[in-house]
C-alpha cells in the first residue's frame, strides 16, 4: 500500500554469504577469549572500560551482521542508537546525582556507603567461623570496616543515625 513511500528499495531479501557468518562466529569466539584473557590482568580503573569496549565490539558484530543491520535500512540503526542514547541519559543522570549530591552540603551523601544493619549479626557469626572466640577482634574488624566505608569517599560523611557521633 505505502510501497510508494516505503523506505525499502530492493525487493529481494539480502542473503548473506556463508563465509561472512563463519567469519563473525570465529571473531566472536576469539573476542570471548580476549575478554577472559584481559580480565586476568588487573588494569585498575581501566578494567571496566576495556571489558565494555570488547563487549561492544562483539555486540556490534552480532547486531550488524547477524541481525542484518548493515544490510537493512538505516532507520533500524537509528532506532537502536536512540534506545542506547536514552539508556545512557538515564544512567548518566542518575550517576551524576549520586556522585555529586554532597558537593554543596557535605552532610548529604549517598547511603550506599553504609552497610545494612542486619549484617552486624552475620559479621559476628562470620568472625566466629574465622577466629573462634576472639570477640574483641571481631568488634574491631567491624568497626574498622565501617569507618573505612565512610572515609573512603570525598566528603566527611556524618552517620545520620546519631548526630553526636
Amino acid at each position, binding site marked *: 500500500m505505502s510501497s510508494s513511500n516505503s523506505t525499502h528499495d530492493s525487493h529481494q531479501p539480502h542473503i548473506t554469504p556463508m563465509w561472512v557468518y563463519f567469519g563473525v562466529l570465529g571473531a566472536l569466539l576469539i573476542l570471548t577469549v580476549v575478554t577472559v584473557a584481559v580480565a586476568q590482568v588487573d588494569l585498575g580503573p581501566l578494567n571496566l572500560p576495556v571489558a565494555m569496549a570488547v563487549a561492544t565490539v562483539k555486540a556490534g558484530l552480532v547486531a550488524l551482521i547477524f541481525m542484518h543491520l548493515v544490510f537493512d535500512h538505516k532507520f533500524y540503526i537509528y532506532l537502536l542508537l536512540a534506545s542506547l542514547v536514552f*539508556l545512557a541519559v538515564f544512567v548518566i543522570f542518575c550517576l551524576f546525582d549520586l556522585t555529586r549530591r554532597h558537593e554543596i552540603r557535605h552532610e548529604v551523601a549517598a547511603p550506599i556507603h553504609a552497610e545494612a544493619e542486619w549484617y552486624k549479626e552475620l559479621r559476628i557469626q562470620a568472625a566466629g567461623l574465622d577466629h573462634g572466640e576472639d570477640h574483641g577482634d571481631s568488634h574491631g574488624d567491624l568497626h574498622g570496616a565501617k569507618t573505612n566505608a565512610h572515609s573512603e569517599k570525598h566528603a566527611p560523611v556524618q552517620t545520620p543515625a546519631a548526630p553526636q557521633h
Partner: protein
Amino acid sequence: MSATTHDSHGHPRLAHHFFEMEQQHECAKLGMWLFLLTEILFFGGLFCFYFIWRIMDPELFVGASEMLNWKLGGLNTIVLIFSSFTVAMAIRSIQQNKRNACAIYLAITIACAFVFLVVKYFEYSAKIGHGTLPGTSFHDLHFLAEHPEVKNPHIFFSIYFCMTGLHGFHVICGIVYIAWLLYLTLKNRFDSEYYAPIEMGGLYWHLVDLIWIYLFPLLYLI
C-alpha cells in the same frame, strides 16, 4: 475480506489489511525492532542498577565477582554465540527455501539454549547451597569471613540474580518460540516469500545473546 483489493500478490499468508508480502514483512520487522527497543530499556534499568553500584562501591564488585565461576560463564557465552550463529544460518536457509537445513539449525539452537540453562542450573544451585542469595536471605558466612572489606555483598548477588534471572527467563521464552517455529517449519509453513516469524525469532534470539555478551564480563570477569 475485500478479496477484490489484492489479487496481485495472492500469497496465502498475506493478511487482509496488507497490500503485499513486502509490506507485511516490513511491518513485522519494524514491530520486532520496536519490541527489541523496549527489551533494551527494560534490561537498561538493571544495567543502571549495576553501574551505579559499580561506580559508587567498586570493592563490592571486585570481591563478590570472585564468587562466580567464569569458566561456566565463559562456556555459556560460547554456547550462546554459537546458537546465535545457528539461528542466523536458519534464516539464511529458509531464504533459499532449504526447509530441512532450516529445521536442523533451529533444532541446534534449541539444544544450545538447553545447554545454557543446564549450566545455569548448576551455577544457581551452587550459590543457593552456599547461602549466596540475593537480598536479605543472603547468609554466606564464609564469604563474609573471607571478604571483610566488602560491604553489602547481598547487593551484588541481587544484581547477579536479577540480571541472569531475567535473562534466563528470556532464554526460556526463546526456547518456546523457536520450538514453535521448528514445528511450523516441519509443517512446511515457511518459504522464501514468507519467513517473517523466523526472522523475528532470530532477531529476538540475537538480542538475548547480545545482552549476555555484556552480562558475562560485567558479572563474571571484572
